[in-house]
């Protein structure tokens, strides 16, 4: 056996770039200046000096908090503009500043409302509650789009799931309702799969059509049957919260994460499973391969279409479970269009999260927090237009994503049908 030593060295050029591009540096810097000025002036100096803020049991001076936060953020902004943080630190700086800003904002809310108590635990609990369907919807999106099928039909899958859970949950019990939700979601997923993979229909149009289809169909059945016989067909029992032993007793975190019902726990399991499976298993490697370069996967003997079918249908089932959260997970009854656009927000979370499970979860939590904050503001600060304030987190999200994430890269073959031979 002959060995030929190749004379050429394999030189891989890694661009070690510590500095940020100038445009990012100035953009992020300007954004920080804005945050700093807003907290220094509006959230700090404009307050009555004696106003106190109540966050849970914590009492903070309103003016001082705003000023301190403002000064810290401005200092960070100054360094960013003058010298520039290293590329790896920018995310941390930006995230930290946003967190500080949110704290200052909440103290302002409390202090401005003459010491109205801001229930921080409640706020975060609400955030997670609102984020659960988003996270599940986004996981459904991850499964589909990582394998190369665009899933705009998350909303429809959720709605079908919500309907299935209510119907079957009323007839056979909530557990069967949960299973039914997965099945109903998977059915919409299967329609998506067949038309996208076999009949090569434009996947975005197809997704929109499926959403309308699910809306119309569930609406029709709701009017025709559920309404006529609400008692028998639309009274699923809501899952009771379960306090997990030990975990549920941790202060602050316990009530937040571990005193929830089974749908929420199932969500945790699904998130971890998707993340681990996608990056550490054979299934995950192949899924990412068919989403990036299906032909390459085909030439090494991977059955591209079969895998896509499977992943899209599993994705549909997960979105269906996300829908079940609305009926057997919280409200306890199906209503027309009960998902009200959550599937679309889940899609946005998926993209903001750069098609990664972790990113999608973080984005979902952010969106959940934004919604919870809006609800809170409408109660505590009736004087100011809460719609306007509720905009802030979204604006912050968009700017943070634009500054941090930069150009978003979808899986290369996302939305490209694969015609084998």
């Amino acid at each position, binding site marked *: *056996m*002959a*060995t*030929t*030593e*190749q*004379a*050429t*060295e*394999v030189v*891989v*050029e*890694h661009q070690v770039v510590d500095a940020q*591009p100038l445009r990012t540096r100035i953009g992020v810097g300007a954004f920080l200046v804005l945050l700093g000025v807003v907290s220094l002036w509006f959230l700090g100096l404009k307050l009555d000096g004696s106003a106190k803020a109540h966050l849970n049991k914590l009492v903070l001076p309103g003016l001082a908090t705003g000023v301190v936060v403002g000064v810290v953020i401005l200092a960070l902004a100054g360094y960013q503009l003058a010298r520039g943080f290293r590329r790896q630190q920018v995310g941390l700086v930006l995230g930290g500043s946003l967190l500080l800003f949110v704290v200052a904002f909440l103290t302002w809310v409390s202090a401005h409302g003459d010491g109205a108590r801001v229930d921080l635990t409640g706020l975060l609990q609400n955030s997670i509650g609102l984020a659960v369907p988003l996270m599940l919807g986004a996981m459904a999106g991850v499964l589909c789009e990582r394998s190369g099928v665009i899933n705009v039909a998350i909303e429809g899958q959720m709605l079908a799931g919500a309907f299935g859970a209510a119907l079957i949950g009323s007839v056979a019990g909530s557990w069967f309702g949960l299973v039914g939700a997965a099945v109903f979601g998977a059915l919409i997923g299967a329609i998506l799969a067949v038309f996208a993979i076999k009949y090569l229909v434009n996947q975005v149009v197809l997704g929109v059509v499926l959403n309308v289809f699910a809306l119309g169909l569930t609406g029709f059945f709701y009017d025709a049957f559920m309404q006529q016989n609400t008692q028998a067909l639309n009274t699923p029992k809501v899952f009771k919260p379960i306090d997990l032993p030990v975990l549920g007793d941790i202060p602050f975190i316990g009530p937040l994460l571990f005193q929830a019902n089974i749908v929420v726990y199932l969500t945790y399991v699904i998130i971890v499973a998707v993340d681990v499976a996608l990056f*550490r*298993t*054979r*299934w*995950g*490697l*192949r899924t*990412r*391969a068919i989403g*990036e*370069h299906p*032909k*390459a*996967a*085909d*030439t*090494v*003997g*991977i*059955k591209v279409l079969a895998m896509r079918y499977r992943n899209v249908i599993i994705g549909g089932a997960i979105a269906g479970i996300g829908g079940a959260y609305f009926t057997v997970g919280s409200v306890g009854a199906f209503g027309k269009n009960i998902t009200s656009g959550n599937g679309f927000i889940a899609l946005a979370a998926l993209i903001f999260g750069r098609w990664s499970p972790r990113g999608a979860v973080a984005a979902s939590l952010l969106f959940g927090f934004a919604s919870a904050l809006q609800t809170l503001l409408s109660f505590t600060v009736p004087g100011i237009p809460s719609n306007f304030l509720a905009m802030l987190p979204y604006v912050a999200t968009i700017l943070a994503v634009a500054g941090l994430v930069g*150009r978003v890269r979808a899986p*290369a073959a996302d939305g490209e049908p694969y015609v084998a*031979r």
Partner: protein
Amino acid sequence: MKLELRGITKRFGALTANDSIDLVVEPGEIHALLGENGAGKSTLMNTLYGLYQPDEGEILIDDVPVTFAGPGDAMRAGIGMVHQHFMLIPVFTVAENIELGHERTRPLGFLDRRRARKEVEEVSRRYGLQVPVDALVQDLPVGVQQRVEILKALVRDAQVLILDEPTAVLTPQETDELIEVMRSLKEAGTSIVFITHKLREVRAVADRITVIRRGKVVGEASPTSTAAELASLMVGRPVKLEVDKATAKPGDERLRTDTLRVVDAAGQVLVDDVSLKVRAGEIYALAGVQGNGQTELTEALVGLTPVESGSVHLDGADITKAGVDAILDSGVGYVPEDRLHDGLISSFTVAENLVLDLYDDKPYRKGWSLDLDYIHGFAEERVSEYDVRTSGVDAAASTLSGGNQQKVVLAREMSRELRLLIVAQPTRGLDVGSMEFVHQRIVAARDAGAAVVLVSTELDEVLGLADRIGVMYRGRIIGEVPGGTDAETIGLLMAGDASVLEAKPA
């Protein structure tokens, strides 16, 4: 392992891509499959690899008939293939790419990355194919990516390795390395099917040569045959491999660029301080490996790509920001490298394509509308002058073969009085016959007094046509040499080694 194809026929609709082809690959031989583009070589190999099902005929391994339902079956039977367009996933690491499809796993399907890495390292050492196991494929040079492809097949214990046009994307030095690798694989007992249309390489490495023309085997040749013999077997008639041209009579300076810089949206410098001068009546070739800024440079010359800094002058007039229309009107002809996307509108007719950049000038228009009668007559004239094989000037451009499409583009661009002709990859994908024709036309344009900028990654083409050669590497022209320079010097320049110029100043 002995591999045999018997009477393989593959049809796509009315087209018979393979017509009862017989082929035997003996154990441990390098068997070259020689043929022009479109002769049916790739179809045959895709059939062998299980990507296509043959309409007739059978595949035998060690005299036992087998059927492959997909590439998986072919791989299990010991056949590996390195595709012309690499089947690698750019965002995966080398190890991930190699293990994809036959992953080493622990229970529950978890990837055993350590074992996969060890396996890759072991095979890579055994065959002397060095690869950086943990690097992302997208960061690797093309030659190394190809090694990854070869390793992919070897890790699966391929006994027969199919290399589909493996040298198309390589520098001459990388090609030499590949030839070494092929020889050492052969010594280790692997058979190789080497698909190519390049005569030099075939003669250098093949043990046996099978020539395919229009889907049929037209003969076997020995590697001792001359290039001319092989070429005429491949084309079916005697061909001239040399380009006929008289010595250039360069006139005044026509085109001048000064420190031209092109930067893409991501801030990457694609053309870096290029200053060049081209005279009337000379062919200036831009040589280099694909992707070193040639495309962007030509696009900047015709105004398709915005220029970051620097200037372009045509006969002393600044045309840097003049805009495409004005630049073409001032007597610039442009044959883009991707004729299907940039050179033609494939759903338009031949006649329409022939007036794409002329239609708004007289005599092609009459008042506010096109003069269709004139255009029709004009197109007929062009088609016969350039010998475009088409069912008529009203046939869609997409129905033409690559060579005839290129003739349409050339005919259009040369329909005007030209001061400067820019041609990029003019013969890519063309058969030898069309190639001769295109080359003659380019030389004719030069002799008519135009300055010609030729972009080509084919060294033979550059050497055959150029009066002067500028070699581009990473956006720069790292060396300028006269036309007759030897291939080795240019090859080294293409690989970024400018030290050859200091050794023997041109």
